[in-house]
């Protein structure tokens, strides 16, 4: 990996890694009487391993080729590997916590393995570990190809990728140790948050500098989505995580936002993390890999622009629909509901645009499981955005809120949309990056597709059922006018669905493991693309085994 760096760049990399090690040492000393010390040691180890890797090939030969004449793909390859590793970890944690809800003794009486500590390892593992690494890797790929320019840095892409993974490691090890801010999807504590700001600013600078290298005045729309993802996530992250630590030696901090303000800021963040992390970034993937794989231009470029601004504008208003009927002022709830419903327009415009792009290439969707991943993703995107707008309507929300319906909705989006579009994009990207004829096994892609679809459907149907039953039981009255069911009655009714949900998740996990194996074998054993100099995906006809 270092063969592409000049000796002065290797020096810079070593200084950076050494600096991180030093910061770790300071954290370890400052926080020696707190869990912060443990994290200091983890940072030191991380910095140390990277330093060691840089030093190991420090005196290797200088890069011979003219680097400006080729794309910078090494960080992308590592990013894909990390994304898949996190996928397996995060989904395994998901299956485990799902099983704990049905069989609570699966926590084995330890502190670190109880539901409350494991749950954020699942959410952060899949959202940030899997989703984040996939976004970084694909954004590096898309920005280079659409700008026809090499990444505007040699060390900074590694800094972004590895720095982001350090954040993930700190966040997730923290939850196991009991370090959490309790803000959903922003659980990591102040020092990890500060670190992420540094990484994220670098990411933004790198991205914009690469775009500025392009020849064409127009920026391709996929980059718009990636830029919105990078920028808005930075704003959200900083505002939501403003906090003061108990001391420099404590992992614990107190947020500056109290009570109702905190609730509004948290769900402004929480909902827009969905919007800009889990939607905008992945729409960037969709707008590049779907047309490329289908070998058809996007149906309507104008529509993609209109829906881009619609999503960027509307989403920011919608967060308060998480707080219907609470102590939040009523007008804020109403605004949130209104904009959530309006959001359906740009969301369906995107989903429709994707499906209409495929119109006329349905035979390819039938034959090519990779393209089918992306088509199914667009369908699930349409379904879950409809569901989301529906659930944001106050009376519907009065039934669905606090129940498993919300969990089902999130997973319709996360499994059906985010994960499927990612797998589709990675199956397109992996053979092209490693210059293979195609994936090692088209059959395994097919198997993965059906496992993913079956897993998602089982999961979502189980949660719809349990959520609606739960919501109805809570509000059912007897003829005498008293509540018909105790809370416990509603819990007992949930058990069969909790088991079904864990099974659905397990299928999805198995699919991801098969995907890892297939990608690994593609890199190891698939035949090289013979004379194909072109950097385009293989047409389905050329995929062996079909």
């Amino acid at each position, binding site marked *: 990996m270092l063969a592409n760096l000049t000796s002065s760049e290797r020096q810079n990399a070593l200084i950076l890694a050494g600096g991180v090690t030093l910061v770790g040492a300071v954290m370890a000393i400052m926080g020696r009487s707190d869990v912060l010390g443990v994290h200091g040691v983890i940072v030191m180890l991380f910095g140390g391993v990277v330093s060691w890797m840089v030093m190991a090939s420090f005196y290797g030969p200088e890069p011979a080729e003219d680097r400006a004449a080729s794309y910078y793909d090494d960080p992308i390859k590592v990013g894909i590997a990390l994304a898949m590793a996190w996928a397996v970890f995060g989904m395994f944690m998901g299956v485990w916590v799902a099983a704990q809800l049905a069989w609570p003794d699966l926590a084995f009486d330890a502190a670190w393995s109880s539901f409350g500590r494991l749950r954020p390892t699942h959410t952060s593992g899949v959202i940030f570990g899997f989703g984040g690494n996939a976004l970084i890797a694909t954004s590096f790929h898309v920005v280079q*190809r659409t700008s026809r320019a*090499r990444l505007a840095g040699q060390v900074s892409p590694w800094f972004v990728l590895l720095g982001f993974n350090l954040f993930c490691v700190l966040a997730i090890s923290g939850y196991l140790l009991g370090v959490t801010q309790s803000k959903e999807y922003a659980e990591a504590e102040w020092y990890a948050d500060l670190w992420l700001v540094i990484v994220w600013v670098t990411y933004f600078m790198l991205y914009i500098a690469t775009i500025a290298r392009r020849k064409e005045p127009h920026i391709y729309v996929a980059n718009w989505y990636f830029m919105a993802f990078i920028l808005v996530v930075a704003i959200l992250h900083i505002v939501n995580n403003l906090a003061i630590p108990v001391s420099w030696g404590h992992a614990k901090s107190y947020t500056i936002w109290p009570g109702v303000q905190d609730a509004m800021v948290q769900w402004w963040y929480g909902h827009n993390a969905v919007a800009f992390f889990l939607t905008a970034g992945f729409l960037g993937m969709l707008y590049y890999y779907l047309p490329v794989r289908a070998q058809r*231009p*996007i149906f309507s*470029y104008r529509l993609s622009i209109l829906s881009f*601004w619609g999503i960027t504008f509307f989403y920011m208003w919608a967060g308060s629909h998480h707080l219907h009927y609470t102590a939040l002022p009523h*007008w804020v709830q109403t605004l949130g509901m209104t904009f959530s419903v309006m959001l359906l327009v740009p969301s369906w415009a995107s989903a429709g645009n994707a499906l209409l792009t495929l119109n006329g290439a349905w035979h390819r969707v039938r034959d090519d499981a990779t393209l089918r991943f992306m088509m199914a993703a667009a369908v699930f995107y349409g379904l879950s955005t409809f569901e989301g707008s529906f659930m944001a309507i106050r009376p519907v929300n009065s039934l669905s809120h606090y129940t498993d319906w919300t969990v089902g909705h999130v997973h319709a989006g996360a499994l059906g949309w985010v994960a499927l579009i990612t797998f589709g994009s990675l199956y397109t990207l992996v053979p092209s990056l490693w210059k293979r004829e195609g994936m090692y096994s088209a059959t395994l892609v097919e198997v993965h597709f059906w496992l993913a679809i079956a897993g998602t459907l089982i999961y979502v149907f189980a949660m719809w059922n349990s959520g609606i039953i739960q919501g109805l039981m809570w509000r059912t009255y007897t003829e005498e006018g008293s509540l018909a069911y105790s809370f416990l009655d509603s819990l007992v009714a949930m058990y069969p669905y909790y088991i079904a949900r864990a099974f659905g998740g397990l299928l999805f996990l198995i699919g991801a493991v098969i995907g890892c194996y297939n990608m690994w074998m593609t890199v190891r054993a698939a035949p090289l693309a013979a004379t194909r100099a072109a950097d385009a995906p293989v047409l389905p006809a050329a995929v062996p085994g079909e």
Partner: protein
Amino acid sequence: MDFSYETLVAFSKSWGLFYMMGFFLCVCVYAFWPRNRKRFDRAKHSILERDDTPWQK
């Protein structure tokens, strides 16, 4: 200057709406401006062109 809660709410409700309408007018103008048509067409076809190297100055 001290803003009361009511003023802020009224301001948010009215100007937020105008801002949104103005913004969307601009976006529509941009998307449907005839001169931009060629640029968009080139963009949507450009990603399908096969290339393996960055452009060189």
